[in-house]
């Protein structure tokens, strides 16, 4: 890995230090406004939509997203854009238009709390506990990935990176709560764009522009197109075909994440009113649709330019595509900016997970099970304690993954087991008034069990797929379908809640607010524009 080592000039160090000063400074300025648990954990529901929109996107820009997608660009080419144009944008439109009125309008403080209002305590408990555990573990994975990159690029010892990044994230989330995390996510968003956009431009330019990349990669099927090679799994480097792609990624996994994961929904719930909450995913969708040009295309340019990745155990380490490009094309000064952008992506992912964890822990575990009559002061104190412990557990998770690196795959796998079926629970909960609490709980547990069983059968060689990605997509479909069917069957066999208790929680029982704004300012119009742009991109890169 010596090939990735860079030496920083004084100006690079200065840029990184200035970035740290501003990140902590924001938390420091905001600390005096943290007077109640609502201020600390919900941002006082006071933020404008452009801020929550950029934070909605930025909270998702963790290590695995930015570095992983650049690596996927190197490995799979433009096919990776499916994770954006099929695997994100439609779900973001759906949550904005159909689900946000229920999340925001029900006054639920978290996603598990919506489950409590719609179904019952046990469904909330299952979702809250699994989410809290997996969230801090994901934060630890972010930390681990970051420390590894800085060890390879700068020679920093692993524990220095872990402790330093944890201390900075802890400082600004402990001082300024969710608002500080969201404000920093907005700052980090702009830093990521300015840090990586020049890299995208220069790498594509060196490869002879888009047409130059197409010519250089003409021999490799599916690298520069997104649909023409997915008719059969054997015709593209991902080993996927259209049914698995659309149903597995485009429906189950994508809707499971963008429509139900509290990490992103929390940003929309911090908006000042319902229209702002609805605009949140729509605003996020615009940069999200363009992100392939920032992270995937540079990866593709690296292949076209013939840049060789460092190897581990004889196999290329795709996650090092972005560091390799930074080293290759960035001079002094720009290197500091690129490293600050990398740090920003790692830290926004970490802080997003920690602030989602502290809210779920405080409201859905502490207040729900441990101290039901907790005062607001006690909730604020617990929120801060949860932030501290969340960061400590993340550090422990980072070391755990360092010592047993296969754990990282297991943790992500585990995350998939829980994320896939939960969308079926929400879909039935919001759009079918007959769905019951027993149905939701047993359906969710069955969906998780089906996902685990599918994985075991696959690893034992009973079920075969053309690639691990195809297996993940079909595993998600099995898990979601099981949850959907079992929830329906059990609901039909159990007593539903009276309809009057479900007003504001279920689509058919809730009066839609009258649209008072002009048609061109409505969420549906904005969503239609985004969809047209994304369809256009799909056609261009067909």
């Amino acid at each position: 890995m010596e090939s990735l080592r860079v030496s920083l000039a004084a100006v690079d160090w200065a840029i990184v230090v200035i970035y740290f000063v501003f990140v902590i400074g924001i938390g420091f300025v905001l600390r005096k406004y943290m007077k109640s648990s609502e201020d600390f954990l919900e941002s006082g529901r006071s933020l404008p939509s452009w801020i929550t929109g950029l934070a909605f996107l930025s909270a998702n820009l963790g290590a695995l997203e930015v570095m992983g997608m650049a690596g996927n660009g190197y490995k799979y080419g433009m096919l990776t854009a499916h994770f954006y144009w099929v695997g994100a944008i439609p779900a973001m439109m759906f949550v904005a238009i159909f689900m946000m009125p229920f999340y925001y309008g029900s006054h639920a403080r978290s996603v598990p709390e919506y489950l409590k209002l719609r179904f019952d305590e046990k469904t909330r408990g299952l979702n809250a506990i699994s989410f809290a555990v997996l969230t801090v573990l994901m934060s630890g994975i972010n930390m681990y990935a970051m420390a590894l990159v800085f060890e390879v690029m700068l020679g920093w010892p692993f524990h220095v990176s872990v402790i330093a990044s944890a201390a900075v994230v802890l400082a600004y989330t402990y001082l300024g709560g969710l608002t500080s995390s969201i404000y920093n996510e907005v700052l980090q968003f702009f830093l990521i764009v300015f840090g990586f956009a020049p890299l995208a431009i220069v790498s594509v330019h060196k490869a002879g522009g888009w047409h130059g990349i197409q010519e250089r990669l003409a021999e490799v099927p599916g690298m520069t197109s997104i649909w023409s090679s997915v008719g059969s799994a054997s015709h593209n480097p991902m080993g996927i075909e259209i049914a698995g792609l659309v149903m597995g990624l485009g429906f189950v996994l994508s809707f499971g994440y963008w429509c139900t994961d509290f990490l992103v929904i929390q940003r929309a719930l911090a908006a000042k009113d319902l229209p702002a909450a609805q605009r949140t995913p729509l605003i996020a969708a615009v940069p999200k649709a363009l992100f392939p040009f920032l992270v995937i295309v540079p990866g593709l340019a690296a292949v076209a330019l013939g840049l060789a990745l460092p190897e581990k155990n004889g196999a290329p380490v795709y996650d090092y595509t972005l560091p390799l490009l930074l080293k290759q094309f960035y001079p002094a000064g720009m290197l500091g900016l690129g490293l600050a952008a990398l740090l920003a992506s790692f830290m926004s992912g970490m802080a997003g997970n920690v602030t989602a964890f502290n809210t779920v822990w405080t409201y859905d575990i502490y207040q729900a099970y441990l101290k039901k009559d907790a005062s607001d002061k006690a909730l604020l104190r617990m929120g801060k304690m949860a932030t501290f412990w969340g960061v400590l557990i993340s550090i422990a998770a980072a070391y755990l993954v360092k010592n047993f690196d296969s754990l990282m795959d297991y943790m992500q796998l585990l995350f998939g087991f829980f994320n896939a079926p939960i969308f079926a629970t929400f879909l039935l909960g919001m759009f079918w008034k007959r769905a019951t609490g027993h149905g939701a709980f047993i359906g969710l547990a069955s969906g998780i069990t089906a996902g685990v069983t599918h994985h075991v059968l696959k690893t034992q060689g009973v079920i075969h797929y053309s690639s691990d990605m195809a297996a993940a997509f079909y595993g998600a479909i099995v898990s979601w379908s099981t949850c959907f069917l079992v929830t329906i069957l059990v609901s039909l066999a159990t007593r539903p809640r009276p309809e009057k208790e479900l007003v504001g929680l279920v689509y058919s029982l809730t009066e839609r607010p009258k649209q008072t704004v002009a048609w061109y300012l409505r969420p549906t119009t904005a969503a239609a524009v985004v969809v047209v742009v994304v369809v256009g991109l799909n056609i261009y890169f067909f």
Partner: protein
Amino acid sequence: MGLDIRLPIGLMFCILGPTILITGLIRGEPLSRNTGAAMTVFGAFMLTMGIRGQRRGTGG
């Protein structure tokens, strides 16, 4: 929430932008020069908007 986020963003870019711009000019690196210039313009815009927002209390 008492602080317009455009203020710190604008201020940070108004420091980072010229730093990178000057480095680019001294070392004759067009990439640093152009990026630094773009960051400076963006920083100045955000700072102006942030000051206005802070006065009016509209920036979050």
